[in-house]
Every structure is written in structure tokens, then in C-alpha cells.
């Protein structure tokens, strides 16, 4: 029941709400993927690249000082919480995004498409797409909101150094939503020669399923690594959710396994200035069902069905939609979704740096910030609780944002 019942649907969510022109390309992609995943040579090449180029498996790290910090904040005894960080920040290019782009760019090559386009928010997906395209010698163009171009400048330079062309998008909110609009417009115009490398488990079918499958390596590895270390399954799995690809990547193996129904799944959205303000990106906490970017899912919208602008200090979570499977997991109760404000995420960013020596992405910092609240919801266990967290990306790209915030708030340390 957790995977699409009919192709492209997660319960009532998903589908293909796109211009007619694109339907043929989505059919072509779906067929190419069906073909490729049954092709041993393709899967072997993907595995080989994930291990020799991306650096998989990424480590699973028991963060002891963070664990004690979380236990203390949650009012639990020290030693009763074990936080395990799945280190996607150590994958090549510094985030989980590369798991998806290597797979999709391999597919693009297989389909004979010489040009790849992508949308990007924080720039991590843009960098990962540019990287994969450089690896295979394909042309790469990335659409990025003008506001994100400014706040994620290092990633813009990285994409350019990798040979990609970055198109700043000046329409609308000048963030991820509008970058995706512009990528769709480009795709419809160059559909015969271009593969659109969608960066999240969002968009029209087959993207939510395709990206989920390419990212599911995160959860499969983590589950095996945790079992090897502890002999047990995690009590909870935690990940930040913008479009939701790192979360689906770490959730998938638990969602698909009926024997894992006791493993609690938690997604953490961006509450921006607070979910009771108009400036947040908490689509699953505060949104309603709508259609955006080709799929039916929860969206932030007004009474007239106009999509609202989201807000988050983290460009990768600053999106008024969410992947359709998350909407399904929310409504079915399989996963629970919380929201964390900008300032709590920044505090968690600092705290992870001080306790563990890890500068994480601001997106990831939302998941870290939610840990005490999540732990407080879990029943106590004498032998201690194991909490698996997707450390989705590293924070180098966010240093300017963090510096501005420290200056603005006068944070001394």
C-alpha cells in the first residue's frame, strides 16, 4: 500500500498534471527506467560509480556527545539515547543529491539526450547535476532563483567551474518554486533533446518513484550499518523535508518492509519565522491539497488556489510544495511531520558544530533541531533508543548566511 497502487499514485497523491507536450517525454523516461533497472550492466555501472566515484557507502556515525545533549534537552537520562548520523555530507559534492543525479544522467545518456537541465534551490542539486554531466560529457544548464543565486554564491561558482550554465530566474518569489517553473518551460521547449533531471521526489510521475528509488540507497545502507553495530532496527528515523528526497531516501526501506512498522518515521519541515506567521515552508503542517509542478500533493496556497511564497533561511527547504509520497505518509499516519524555525535550526547548526565537529547544511540542521522533541515522543526503553538521522549535506555553502545571522542577532558564539 505504500508504493504506488497504480503507476504514479501514492493513494490519492501524485499523477501527471503537465502540458500535453511533456506526456510523451514522461512516458519515454518511465520506459527507459523500467528497462534500465532490469539491465544488469546498467545497475552494475551505477553501483560501481556510487562506490568508486561518490564514495558509498557513506559512514554511519554514533554521535555520542550530540546524543547526550539531545537526551538532556528531552529530559532523559544520559546514555538512554543513541543518535546515529548517516553521513551523506561525506558523499562526493557534499550532499545526498549525487545519488540521484548519477542515476538520472546515466539514464539521459542511455536515452541519447545530449542536454540535461535541472532546477536548484540551495545549489546542491545543481552542483550534483553539473558534476554528473561533467563526468559523462553532457551539456548542463541549471535554473536557480535569483534570491538563491545570491545566498548560495559558492555553489553558483562550483556549477560554473564544472562547466554548467546557470540561469538566474527573476520571476515570482525568485526561489526554488520559480526555478522549477522555468525548468519546465525550458523542457517543454527542448523536450526532444533534453532530459530534465528533477532533484526531489516531486514533479510528475515517474519522478517521485524514480528519485525515491535512486535515493533509497541511503536507508538500505544505514539500516544494514545500524544492524551491524547494534543488532537491531532504529526506534526512529529522522530527516528534513523540503521536496523530500533525502527523507524518502532514508524512509523507503522502512516504508516498504511490513516488518518495520514499529520504526517511527519523522520528517522535519522549515517553520521559517513560525508556522503561525505567513513566512514558513511547512507544507505538510499548514498546507492543503493542490496541484503544483505536475503532481497532486499538499501545497501552500490561498483561497483562490494561487500558490503562496514559502520562506526558510535554508534555500533547499524554501518550497511551497512537497513530494506526493510524503503527503500519503502523512495522511496514512505512517510518518509524522514536524516543523522547526529558522532560529532553532541555526542554534542546532552551532550545537552540532560544537558537540561533534560537523558543520551541517542548514537544511539538515532542521532535523537536528527537532531531535529533542522527537525523542520526547518515544517511549522510554531500558536498553536505550536508537535514532537514525539523515545528515543530508554539509554546511560550507551556508557560511555566509550563518555569518549574516550572527551579525544580525549579535550571537557571540
Amino acid at each position: 500500500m505504500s508504493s504506488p497502487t497504480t503507476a504514479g499514485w501514492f493513494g490519492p497523491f501524485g499523477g501527471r498534471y503537465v502540458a500535453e507536450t511533456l506526456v510523451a517525454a514522461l512516458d519515454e523516461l518511465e520506459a527507459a527506467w523500467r528497462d534500465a533497472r532490469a539491465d544488469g550492466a546498467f545497475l552494475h555501472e551505477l553501483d560501481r560509480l556510487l562506490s568508486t566515484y561518490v564514495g558509498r557507502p557513506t559512514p554511519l556515525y554514533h554521535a555520542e556527545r550530540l546524543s547526550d545533549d539531545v537526551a538532556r534537552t528531552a529530559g532523559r537520562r544520559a546514555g538512554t539515547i543513541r543518535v546515529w548520523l548517516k553521513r551523506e555530507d561525506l558523499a562526493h559534492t557534499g550532499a545526498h543529491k549525487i545519488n540521484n543525479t548519477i542515476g538520472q544522467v546515466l539514464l539521459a545518456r542511455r536515452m541519447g539526450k545530449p542536454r540535461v537541465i535541472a532546477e536548484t534551490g540551495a545549489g546542491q542539486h545543481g552542483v550534483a547535476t553539473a558534476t554528473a554531466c561533467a563526468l559523462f560529457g553532457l551539456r548542463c544548464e541549471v535554473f536557480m532563483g535569483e534570491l538563491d543565486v545570491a545566498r548560495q554564491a559558492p555553489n553558483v561558482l562550483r556549477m560554473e567551474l564544472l562547466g554548467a550554465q546557470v540561469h538566474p530566474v527573476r520571476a515570482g518569489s525568485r526561489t526554488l518554486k520559480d526555478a522549477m517553473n522555468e525548468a519546465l518551460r525550458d523542457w517543454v521547449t527542448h523536450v526532444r533533446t533534453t532530459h530534465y533531471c528533477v532533484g526531489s521526489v516531486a514533479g510528475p510521475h515517474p519522478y517521485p518513484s524514480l528519485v525515491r528509488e535512486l535515493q533509497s540507497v541511503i536507508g538500505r545502507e544505514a539500516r544494514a550499518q545500524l544492524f551491524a553495530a547494534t543488532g537491531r532496527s532504529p526506534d526512529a528515523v529522522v530527516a528534513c523535508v523540503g521536496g523530500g528526497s533525502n527523507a524518502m531516501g532514508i524512509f523507503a526501506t522502512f516504508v516498504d518492509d511490513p516488518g518495520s512498522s514499529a520504526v517511527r518515521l519523522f520528517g522535519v519541515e522549515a517553520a521559517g519565522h513560525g508556522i503561525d506567521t505567513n513566512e514558513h515552508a511547512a507544507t505538510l503542517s499548514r498546507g492543503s491539497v493542490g496541484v503544483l509542478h505536475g503532481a497532486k500533493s499538499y501545497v501552500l496556497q490561498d483561497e483562490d488556489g494561487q500558490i503562496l511564497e514559502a520562506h526558510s533561511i535554508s534555500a533547499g527547504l524554501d518550497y511551497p510544495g512537497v513530494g506526493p509520497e510524503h503527503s500519503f505518509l502523512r495522511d496514512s499516519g505512517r510518518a509524522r511531520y514536524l516543523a522547526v524555525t529558522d532560529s532553532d535550526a541555526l542554534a542546532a547548526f552551532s550545537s552540532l558544530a560544537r558537540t561533534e565537529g560537523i558543520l551541517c547544511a542548514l537544511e539538515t540542521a532542521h532535523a537536528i533541531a527537532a531531535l529533542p522533541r522527537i525523542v520526547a515522543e518515544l517511549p522510554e526503553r531500558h536498553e536505550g533508543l536508537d535514532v537514525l538521522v539523515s545528515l543530508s549535506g554539509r554546511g560550507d555553502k551556508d557560511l555566509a548566511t550563518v555569518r549574516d545571522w550572527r551579525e544580525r542577532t549579535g550571537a557571540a558564539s
Partner: protein
Amino acid sequence: MTSRLRAAFDRARAENRAALVVYLCGGDPDLATTPALLDAIARAGADVIELGIPFSDPTADGPVIQEASARARKAGATARGVLDALASWRRSKSPHADRPVVVFGYYNPILRMGDAAFARAARNAGADGLLVVDLPPEEAGTLADACEAEAMDLVPLLAPTSSDARIALAGTRARGFVYYVSTAGVTGAGGVDFDAAAARARTISDRLHLPVAVGFGVSSPDDARRVAAHADGVVVGSAVVRAIAGGDAAGAPARVAQLVRDLRGACGRA
């Protein structure tokens, strides 16, 4: 019963010309001007009018219609407001106020109101059909049912990338006409091969036994003439929006009327 949309195409064909379909974005420059623009477009000879509902994320539109949509929203246009403007024109004493109108837009504002409620509201406002850019036939079931219940046409879109199977699928529930997108691209696209598009439209029309109108990128009377040579209808959008935006609101009806007259003159067949 033949719909008013179908009848408009039949009439044009009887006069040995293509039907002229004119798009405008509802609420641009403001809702108060929309009824006057509808009337000016009808009076100048448009056979069918496509009335756009502004949307925050118009992914199928080029810059001209994106900007019109943004202007309309900024001036306070909503889906209900645009339908009210249509109703107000229908109630006017204008001799042209019975011209068929297709409400044109994206799916989310419709879904927000509810398929059945939106179809009813559109019908009550005087719409003859709906055209939803991001709703291919596979997802259009409930809205098609709602339109049928209100005796409205849900106009399907076909594109150069549509397979024979998809052409047949689009034809299964179409009654008024079919919109053929001239090129893989967004509205207002340049460099379209109109002769090829019109020929393709002819083939589709023969296969489905329905009139087929060709849109996307038709901006001048010359473009219209090339499309009209083979196709049942010619759709002009971005050029009309540009004429509306090319001066003050008060002068917009006169500006657009001039363009529509020129386009209508180009729809005849030799």
C-alpha cells in the same frame, strides 16, 4: 445538440474561413476593463474567446502571458473575479455578448474550488467550455464529468509530441473543438513552422471529425493566414495581450479591436 463552440467553427467553415480564437488574460490590466475587452474582441470579429484565469505558476506560458497573469493578480484578479467579469459582459445589452467563451487556465484554482463547483460557476457565468493546460486526459476524468453535467465542453490539447494513441484518447470526450499546440514550447514561442502545424491539425481534424484550432506563436496576420490555409481555427494570445498592455487601460479595447480586425481579415481562404 451542437454546442455553441462547435457552431462557431461550423459557421466559419461555411464562410470558407478559419475561425478566429482570441485569448485574453482575465483581470489584465484590471477586472473592471475585462467586460469592455471581451466586447471589443467579439465586436471586432473573434469567433471564440479564450478567457484566461491568472495563476501564480503559469508553467506553459512565455513571458508575455506570465507578465499579464502577474499584473492581473497584482490588480486583485481571482478565478471568481474573472468569472464575475464574464457574467457581467453576458448580462450587458451588447449584441455581441453571446459569443462563445472558453475559460482557460491551470488546474489548481479549479481544484481549489472543486471540479463540480468550478464547472457550475463557469457555466453560470456564461462559459461554453473549459481548457486546462496542465490537465491531460488521464487526469481529467472528474472535470470532464463535471463539464458534461453542465453541458460544457472540456477542450483537449494536443501537441507535436502526441502519439496516435493519445490523439484518439483526447478525442474520446471532446465535443466542441481540439486545441493543437503548434510547437513544443510555451505560449508566444517564435520560429514556429505554421505550415507543418496546420497540416498536422488537418490530419487530426480528419481523424477525430472535430474542428482543430492551432495556437502558440501565432502573432501576425501573416502567421494567421498560413495557419488558416489548412486549419479549422487560429488561436492568437500573446500578440493580443501585448496590444492590451501597450498603453493605458482606457485605450485597450480600441487597440485590441484593431489587431483582432486585422487577424480576422487574414482568416479567409482564397
